[in-house]
């Protein structure tokens, strides 16, 4: 169980911005999200960053019920 946040065009593609997903790790979460193939493809794109509990992660990490996972498309700048 992790709280998943989508930003920018990811939210447009998925049709949601925030959802609770049952997954014990980031890789399990990605697998669960791949029920939406367009979203899964977008999340695999270049320059996509993932933050767990507001810190960027590059490898797989374990998730707890309290985890917040954010998928960040390439940043626009301000």
């Amino acid at each position: 169980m992790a709280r998943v946040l989508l930003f920018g065009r990811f939210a447009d593609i998925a049709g949601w911005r925030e959802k609770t997903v049952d997954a014990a790790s980031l890789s399990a979460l990605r697998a669960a999200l791949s029920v939406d193939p367009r979203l899964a493809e977008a999340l695999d794109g270049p320059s996509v960053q993932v933050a767990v509990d507001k810190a960027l992660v590059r490898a797989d990490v374990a998730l707890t019920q309290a985890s917040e996972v954010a998928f960040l498309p390439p940043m626009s700048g301000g």
Partner: protein
Amino acid sequence: MSVTLQTAPFDPGALLTRFSADREETGAIASFTGLARAEGGQTTTLELEAYEGFTDLEITRAVDAAIHRFGLQDALVVHRIGPIAPGEAIVFVACAAAHRRAAFEACDQLMDWLKSRAPFWKKEHGPDGSRWIEPTDRDRTDAARWDTENEQ
């Protein structure tokens, strides 16, 4: 030092008035105001998304780094989020230093960083629909001017 993300419009002049008050040893304040352009009617609204708790922390880190790198006395960043109308201020950056070179360079570097590397997602709404914006090549090369071997 202060970093603020806010949905409410702000007056850059009011921010500069407060930032420049009571400074007996500040010789130089450089400021930058970024405004939303109408693009001849092609942009009716700009919409900026931030990740609260993350975006503000990343900006605070960038401002801290600029304070140390350029020897600033103080710095201020105010950034709008949410929908922004043409002519409204998107961002205000002010840098205070003893001398002008440091104030100018820090303000310039912070803006280059904000425009290309700050975690915002930006959508332009116009008569022909909406589109997500990414940094231009120019934004990326401007930001790269400040990269050093000691930094990422």
